[in-house]
């Protein structure tokens, strides 16, 4: 039975074991069987680790393409395929199609094509990406660009319910993958560049009714906090913790959007996610810490009530959104086993927190180029900002030069992976710096609210080491905060990583290579050029006794935009820099799922 689980059998077995409608138990069971890839992170902890080891560091060099599938959609393909039993589900960027594919013969069971108003396209900053699906209780959940959260019957693709999560006319859209937790589905909101006030919301998976909604900023009642019990750096946050850190009503259009990934710890019953940049990009007009933008949040899954917050970049001056994934792993820190949360922030620091209490354990730079802060003060948790790189201290209409990292961060949304076998985290990174000049803009609802000009260029221009590469793929020790190995990538590494029990780590590149490297040494063991640049996540599953690896290619997103501007002598003959501007010389648009396996049987 194990080997040839049908979708129905897989689901029925888990449903029986868990009694009625405990979707949490059901999804947990599904994720515990490595034949499935049942949630974006492979498991609730977001480790993106698979126990499968048929493909390993000895034989991965023999990998071959088993089958491919075109989504028929151009634009950037983020996220990755979801596999449950004998069915693979895959999504696309706008218009957010969903395909159910029968793994037996790769035929299509059903296609869902939503009708969405194309007017939401221009409201989506940085391409019309979508980061994937969730499954529970016989339903597939899709968070559409137009903010409609829909539940589809997993067997037929018919819409069971749909709920509107926000208003695109006010700049709200969605790109995130939702997460099923118990009998609810948790989602966020995008629109930080449009003055949207971020929130996390949980809807009941039965009928889509709202269970709770908690804002990133504003009055205590809006934020689901208890001023005496919710803590930050071990202290109660106190009354009006957010309002006090904004001028007047600015929090109403304050950003702190929630477009990243959600993780969940079933033992603690806490969900974890991060909030984005405060609006506008001009820090001068919004004095104060702008809480709780740029914050890691731990909330009770049933009520949304906040247990703890940690603000990584108080009063952001560089657009370092705090939305990257939260990886929950029990690791050694300073000689003792900790229930940790590990987070690689856009701001260039890799944070290790105690996920029970929110205690800050480690905060170190995971790209040596990072220069906007010297370090994080472990007592206060505050980054020590370098005056020269402070766009606020330099002021409006002043060009702050050579800030590292650039606005897209040392890492963007592309999720890292954790292998319990090596104890290491595998992180796809950007190695890009910027010039940033804030200026005054007027706010108009539904209109971009940016307020800074920027130019980006390879970090080598700032470090002076002569390098021109724009990304690295690194192995990180989160217990000590040290890079263990680092592979240079000519372009930003913008694809979600996968680690497996076969001691291989896989990721994609912007030119379109799927790469496999040795988990211990980083040595490249295999590469294959897929039809387009990869900004999707590499996932794995087993079907009929065979391990498969699947990844979406389809270049786009912010990764796809020309960003080598601002160089002295910004011309063609600039080697890798010139090449970066012409990523189109390496790859063209088009969404394709490529599935790999070892030859034979």
């Amino acid at each position: 039975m194990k080997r040839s689980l049908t979708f129905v059998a897989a689901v029925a077995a888990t449903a029986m074991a868990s009694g009625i409608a405990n979707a949490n138990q059901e999804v947990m069971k599904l994720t515990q069987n490595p034949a499935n890839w049942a949630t974006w992170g492979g498991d609730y902890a977001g480790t993106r680790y698979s126990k499968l080891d048929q493909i390993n560091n000895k034989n991965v060099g023999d990998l071959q393409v088993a089958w491919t599938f075109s989504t028929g959609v151009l634009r950037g393909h983020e996220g990755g395929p979801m596999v449950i039993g004998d069915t693979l589900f895959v999504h696309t960027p706008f218009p957010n199609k969903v395909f159910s594919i029968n793994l037996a013969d790769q035929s299509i069971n059903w296609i869902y094509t939503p009708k969405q108003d194309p007017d939401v396209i221009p409201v989506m900053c940085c391409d019309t990406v979508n980061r994937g699906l969730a499954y529970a209780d016989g339903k597939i959940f899709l968070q559409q660009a137009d903010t409609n959260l829909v539940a589809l019957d997993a067997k037929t693709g018919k819409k069971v319910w749909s709920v509107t999560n926000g208003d695109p006319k006010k700049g709200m859209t969605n790109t995130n993958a939702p997460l099923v937790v118990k009998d609810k589905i948790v989602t966020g909101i995008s629109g930080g560049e449009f003055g949207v006030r971020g929130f996390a919301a949980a809807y009941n998976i039965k009928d889509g009714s709202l269970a709770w909604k908690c804002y990133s900023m504003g009055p205590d009642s809006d934020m689901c906090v208890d001023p005496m019990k919710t803590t930050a750096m071990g202290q109660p946050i106190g009354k009006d913790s957010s309002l006090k850190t904004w001028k007047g009503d600015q929090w109403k259009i304050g950003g702190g959007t929630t477009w990243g990934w959600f993780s969940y710890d079933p033992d603690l019953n806490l969900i974890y996610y991060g909030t984005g940049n405060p609006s506008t990009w001009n820090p001068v007009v919004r004095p104060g810490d702008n809480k709780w933008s740029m914050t890691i949040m731990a909330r009770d899954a049933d009520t949304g009530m906040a247990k703890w917050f940690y603000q990584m970049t108080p009063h952001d001056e560089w657009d370092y959104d705090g939305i990257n994934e939260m990886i929950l792993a029990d690791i050694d820190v300073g000689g003792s086993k900790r229930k940790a949360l590990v987070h690689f922030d856009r701001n260039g620091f890799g944070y290790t927190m105690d996920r029970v209490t929110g205690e800050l354990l480690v905060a170190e730079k995971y790209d040596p180029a990072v220069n906007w802060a010297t370090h994080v003060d472990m007592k206060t948790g505050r980054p020590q900002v370098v005056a020269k790189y402070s766009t606020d201290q330099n002021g409006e209409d002043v060009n702050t030069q050579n800030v590292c990292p650039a606005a897209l961060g040392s890492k963007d949304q592309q999720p890292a992976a954790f292998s319990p076998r090596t104890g290491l985290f595998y992180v796809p990174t950007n190695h890009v710096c910027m010039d940033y000049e804030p200026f005054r803009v007027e706010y108009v609802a539904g209109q971009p609210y940016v307020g800074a000009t920027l130019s980006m260029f390879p970090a080598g221009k700032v470090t002076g080491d002569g390098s021109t590469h724009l990304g690295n793929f690194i192995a990180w020790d989160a217990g000590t905060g040290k890079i263990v190995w680092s592979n240079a990538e000519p372009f930003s590494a913008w694809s979600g990583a996968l680690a497996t029990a076969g001691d291989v780590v896989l990721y994609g590149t912007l030119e379109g290579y799927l790469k496999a490297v040795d988990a211990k040494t980083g040595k490249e063991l295999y590469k294959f050029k897929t039809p387009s640049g990869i900004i999707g996540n590499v996932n794995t599953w087993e079907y009929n006794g065979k391990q498969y690896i699947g990844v979406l290619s389809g270049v786009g997103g912010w990764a796809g935009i020309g960003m080598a501007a601002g160089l002295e002598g910004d011309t063609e003959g600039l080697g890798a820099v010139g090449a970066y501007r012409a990523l189109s010389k390496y790859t063209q648009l088009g969404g394709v799922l490529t599935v790999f396996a070892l030859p034979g049987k």
Partner: protein
Amino acid sequence: MKTRAIWLALTIIGLGVLFGLAPARANGPKPYDGHVQCEANNCKIDLWLTRGFRAFSQCQVCHGLDANGSSFAPSLVDTLKEIDQSRFMEVVVNGYKGQMGVMPGWNENPNVMKHIDKLYAYLKARSDGVLPAGKLQRYDR
């Protein structure tokens, strides 16, 4: 030291290209005339044209930080070689849906509308090769 030398070399190449393109400015009046000053082939701009660059920050997320386009919106450096000012005004004010995607209209956005002439002048200067991508120096302060 070695790196410095490389950057210096690159800078010289860059200036050479600027110099090479300079004659293009000779034929006919340009929307950026009087707002660019080039000394020893190093061009600086005034506040008026800087406002055009700032307005361009609204376009960067789609048309690229350097205006050279992205995977989902065309290069404005190339486009402005083909379209005239009235077409530019028309699409920026009202937007349109084309083969590649949706170009939003900006008629409700004061950050663009107040500076649309400067924005056009800035992009035209980029398109003519008079100005490099990225931040520019000011001559009027």
